């Protein structure tokens, strides 16, 4: 016992008497590019492989066929690809909303900028849905009074862009003044509640669509737009899309 304490004491004396104080004297900083001059670590590569194969097989399995190539720049105020997206949201989200609330979705409004890719002619896969909608946005539904729906129409008049819409028709004159606006073929009633579906990004103020916040209720459907598109592709066999007269202006 005594011997052990002596060793401890001795060590402490040595340590305190000549413990070297270390000083930071120099710092060197840089960044190293990761590129194909570096060989990949084989263990890591082997570990990723089965995950990659599963994801790719799933992403590339054919769900539908597109008869043409569609882009968001194909029309002035409505486009084939935009109409397809808004109609798909109405068709796929309505049953979910109906079971939860007993109501139907009357109107869908998305944003033109939210169409992130073209839809190419040929096989349509889950990867197509990831390209068109890479973000995680989900469908939300809010109850808007007719007066707020009119603000939405006013927004569309001013934007002069083919923001995707469904359930509604708008006719403007050559000066972008409103000639006619209907929901389900009927004139808009200021005091009636219309259920409008959009995505959470736009509801939360994206693209300055502030009229959504005038809604009396918010229903989050926990249904991602991308998953909705994948489900829609699975449901339909062929995508034969077209622009129509839902949002037009006369010359």
């Amino acid at each position, binding site marked *: *016992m005594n011997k*052990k*304490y002596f*060793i*401890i004491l*001795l*060590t*402490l004396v*040595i*340590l305190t008497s*000549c*413990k*070297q*104080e*270390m*000083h*930071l*004297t*120099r*710092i*060197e*900083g*840089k*960044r*190293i*590019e*990761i*590129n*194909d001059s*570096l*060989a*990949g*670590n*084989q*263990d*890591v*590569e082997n*570990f*990723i492989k089965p*995950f*990659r194969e*599963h*994801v790719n097989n*799933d*992403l590339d399995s054919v769900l539908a066929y597109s008869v043409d190539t569609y882009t968001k720049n194909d029309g002035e105020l409505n486009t084939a690809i935009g109409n397809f997206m808004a109609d798909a949201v109405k068709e796929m989200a309505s049953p979910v909303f109906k079971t939860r609330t007993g109501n139907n979705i009357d109107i869908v409004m998305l944003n033109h900028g939210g169409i992130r890719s073209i839809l190419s002619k040929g096989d349509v896969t889950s*990867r197509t849905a*990831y390209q068109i909608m890479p973000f*995680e946005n989900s469908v939300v539904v809010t109850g808007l009074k007719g007066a707020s729906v009119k603000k939405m129409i006013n927004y569309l008049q001013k934007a002069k862009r083919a923001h995707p819409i469904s359930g509604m028709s708008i006719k403007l004159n050559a000066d972008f003044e409103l000639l006619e606006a209907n929901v389900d073929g009927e004139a808009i009633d200021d005091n009636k509640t219309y259920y409008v579906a959009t995505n*959470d990004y736009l509801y*939360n103020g994206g693209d300055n669509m502030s009229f959504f916040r005038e809604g009396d209720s918010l229903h*989050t459907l926990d249904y991602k737009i991308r998953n909705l598109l994948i489900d829609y592709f699975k449901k339909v066999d062929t995508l034969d899309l077209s622009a129509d007269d839902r949002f037009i202006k006369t010359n």
Partner: protein
Amino acid sequence: MKRRDFLQQTAASTALIGLGGLTLSSFNSTTQKKITILHTNDVHSHIDPFGPDDGRNANKGGVARRASLVESIRKENPNTLLLDAGDIFQGTPYFNYYGGELEFKLMSMLKYDAATIGNHDFDNGIDGLYAQLPHAKFDFISANYDFSNTNLNTHVKPYKTFVKDGIKIGIFGLGIELDGLVTKDLYKETVYLNPTEIAQDMSRILKEEEHCDLVICLSHLGYNYRNNPDKPSDLTLARATKDIDLIIGGHTHTFLPKPTIEKNSVDKNVLVNQVGCYGLYLGKIDFFFDSDKNKSADGTTIIV
């Protein structure tokens, strides 16, 4: 009780003899030590390299290549730490299919030492992050997210210390304000605390209480907000604190060709670095320590 004391003292004496021996042999001669800090940020589930046809990042990135690079640096200097400044999740279908499992497993294979939490790491909710934690063999650190009323409580530490070659390194984490970036139903009862005040506190604890030789802040605040200069960022943090040697940043996907040198509240140099995103680059900062007093009298030389 007596027996336990005895055992502890024996263990201590053995350890001290070991150290004493080393010190004796190097007594009166100068020694140099080198600590290497490697870092990534905003990798966003980019596991595979970009393909040859990519418009911007052709043939860049890739976790397997990063693994080789880290391995070779560790071989050259075993006193290396590998850190990530958040937004590990979201950006490729790997995240949508596996919820972050693959990202965490690969980071564990690369032997990451610590990571902080980015806003996108909440994309599957705080429960989604919690569910993936068993796949991470490294610690998450965040000092300004109060997780007390969430399931991450006790799983995330404010800071962590490492000892490499006798040099003590203290690392604390900071996260960005979640309100407005992440919906409340995802981050739930996470409370965001003022990062500047927390950083002042953390640097004091790490320097004065933990006696760290090196203090590093792992931040997901963002590099700098030119149009909103009062918003907490890595640069405002560097200026408002002291005793931090290095701020490793993220969030703003800022590609700094070399680290920024900023003056802190007592006019000493702080390094701020960020390497863009998607695992296109690895940041590497080497800290050299010297026992020679004469050298240290000249201050610290920074070569960037």
